């Protein structure tokens, strides 16, 4: 029997033959979107350094991708990536991690990396829950949802991560769901090429933990939910709060050019040497 390898198998480590994700998890779609973006850009895995935190989504590059992969601590991958980027400005740095990791415990690093506009791509997997630890409330959990740590429904408001990162000053901010793999791929490509801080918020399904909490059923039902409730930013702009209730606004929120930190360091070094 002949076995044909997946076209992206060459971007994966030979010895890694399985992933840690549950069947139906959105992480598979996001993994594909990242690898397809790299493939379509014609880049080599040696052009990249991948950094992730702790959580299911942090396992996207780790140890799967045949590249330098650093699996660090919960919430801090962007801070590690900051040190790496400043020392290796010619490399593409890609951080992949979860909503809890990057927006709760690591929220401050997200804000300040966006403010510094340091050149890196952050793929933030927002599954609305703490997947790895068993389905606890995240800052991204829809208000009122019953989770393991909000048995009476969450009382807290839901985090709009893109709005926060845009306000902090990032060069590129975009949101798609796993129902939009093509758009997501296109955005990851733009994010990688963008000289500056680029956030790709990937709304994703966690059928095991979130699916159970929200009684949304299986992965397919969750994807249908994304399909039916997503609304493009250009349309959403004309709608009021009431009409946008329960909707997922997708698209590009920010796409600008501005001074980037690693390049600013290079400029400073040049200026000092000329003095």
């Amino acid at each position: 029997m002949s076995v044909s390898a997946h076209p992206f198998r060459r971007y994966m480590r030979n010895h890694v033959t399985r992933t840690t994700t549950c069947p139906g998890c959105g992480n598979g779609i996001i993994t594909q979107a990242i690898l397809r973006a790299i493939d379509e850009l014609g880049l080599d895995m040696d052009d990249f350094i991948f950094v992730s935190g702790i959580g299911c989504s942090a396992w996207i590059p780790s140890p799967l991708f045949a590249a330098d992969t650093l699996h660090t601590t919960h919430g801090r991958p962007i801070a590690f990536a900051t040190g790496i980027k400043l020392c290796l400005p010619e490399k593409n740095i890609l951080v992949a991690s979860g909503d809890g990791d990057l927006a709760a415990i690591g929220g401050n690093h997200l804000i300040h990396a966006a403010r510094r506009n340091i050149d890196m791509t952050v793929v933030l997997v927002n599954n609305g829950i703490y997947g790895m630890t068993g389905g606890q409330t995240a800052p991204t959990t829809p208000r009122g949802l019953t989770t393991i740590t909000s048995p009476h429904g969450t009382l807290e408001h839901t985090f709009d991560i893109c709005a926060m990162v845009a306000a902090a000053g990032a060069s590129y901010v975009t949101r798609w769901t796993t129902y939009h793999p093509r758009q997501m791929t296109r955005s990851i490509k733009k994010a990688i090429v963008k000289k500056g801080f680029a956030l790709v918020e990937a709304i994703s399904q966690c059928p095991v933990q979130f699916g159970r909490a929200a009684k949304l059923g299986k992965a397919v039902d969750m994807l249908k939910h994304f399909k039916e409730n997503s609304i493009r930013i250009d349309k959403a702009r004309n709608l009021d709060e009431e009409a946008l209730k329960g909707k997922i606004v997708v698209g590009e929120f920010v796409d600008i050019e501005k001074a980037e930190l690693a390049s600013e360091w290079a400029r400073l070094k040049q200026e000092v040497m000329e003095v």
Partner: protein
Amino acid sequence: MKADPKGVLTGSHFLDGDHACAEGALAAGCRFFGGYPITPSTEVAERFSQRCPLVEAIFIQMEDELGSLAAVIGAAWTGRKAMTVTSGPGFSLMMEHIGLAAMLETPLVLANVQRGGPSTGLPTLTGQADMMQARWGSHGDYEIIAVSPNSPQETFDFTIKAFNLSERYRVPVLVMLDECVGHMTEKVVIPPADEIEIEPRRYYKGPKDKYLPFKPDKDLVPPMVDAGSGTRFHVTGLTHDYRGYPVMSADCQEELVRRLVNKIRKNADHIVEYEEEQTDGADVVVISYGITSRVALRAVDLARQEGIKVGILRLIVVWPFPEKRIRELAGKVKAFVMPEINYGQMVLEVDRCACGRAEVALVPHGGGWVHDPEDILHTIRQAAKGKGVGKGVIEYPRKKRG
């Protein structure tokens, strides 16, 4: 290997310990600094921020101490020598990443200019109460190396030593200053670059696709590569095998963590460093470190004038602790006297090694200032009688002053 002259400010200077720390780091080849301001360590960061662009180094003020040490670990994996500096509350925030640095066997230097604690404590005043936290502060089992300078000159010298040890053993090394040493200004002589010995990084030299980041050499230390150099390595804070891949098993844990601990313990004879004076035939040996070792000298002088046979043992490397030597001395002397600016930390190690064979007397100080030599002298006098043998760590009531 000799130092890169670019970072070496050869000449005689008048520097405080904090500035000397920054210069020691730059002389050692440190080319990345990430930190967050905190008294009394901030001057180290200030000097770095000024000097970094001149020596092609990077300086970044991070958003907190977790981020600072994270950025430093990231930078270290790109091949740069990297350091951070902090104090008190910031040191507490760095604990998680000290563990990660130990787990990833990342060479780096962390200077802690100790102030009085706990919590916000005495931000501008001295303390030596983070000594156990330095050794045990992060969760899990691991070993680090820590050095303790007692002057700005030593801070310069020991920061270089710290970088060299960190590269030699692929381990985070702590420079445990205290506010007094950090803020005292003295003459610091910076030698020419070709007189400064630098330990180069231990690089892997085999084929790129065969690199195993955690396969140790004979001395239990694995060679390193730089991120971005094409070896496509993986590192994780999870328990991992030679390849760096996570393995959740007791066997892998035993092999990895045992080695992390043993690479320091089995090499302790090469790492341990202390200074000894007149310990032969001494009745009392005063053990001290950092600023307290200078205060203790006065007490020892006075005691000797009274005819008491007092020796000195001054810790240079505080972790690993000079176990062997303390055990030897315990069989020969009546008592150890240990002044430290805490309520008994390193003295617990002395007591452990004394094994009930010599008296162990602590001269504590809560912090905010250094000891009055009279208090140390008073304890030396009592300890010379050696009546507290086998009683654990004892304290003599302070002498009443008129």
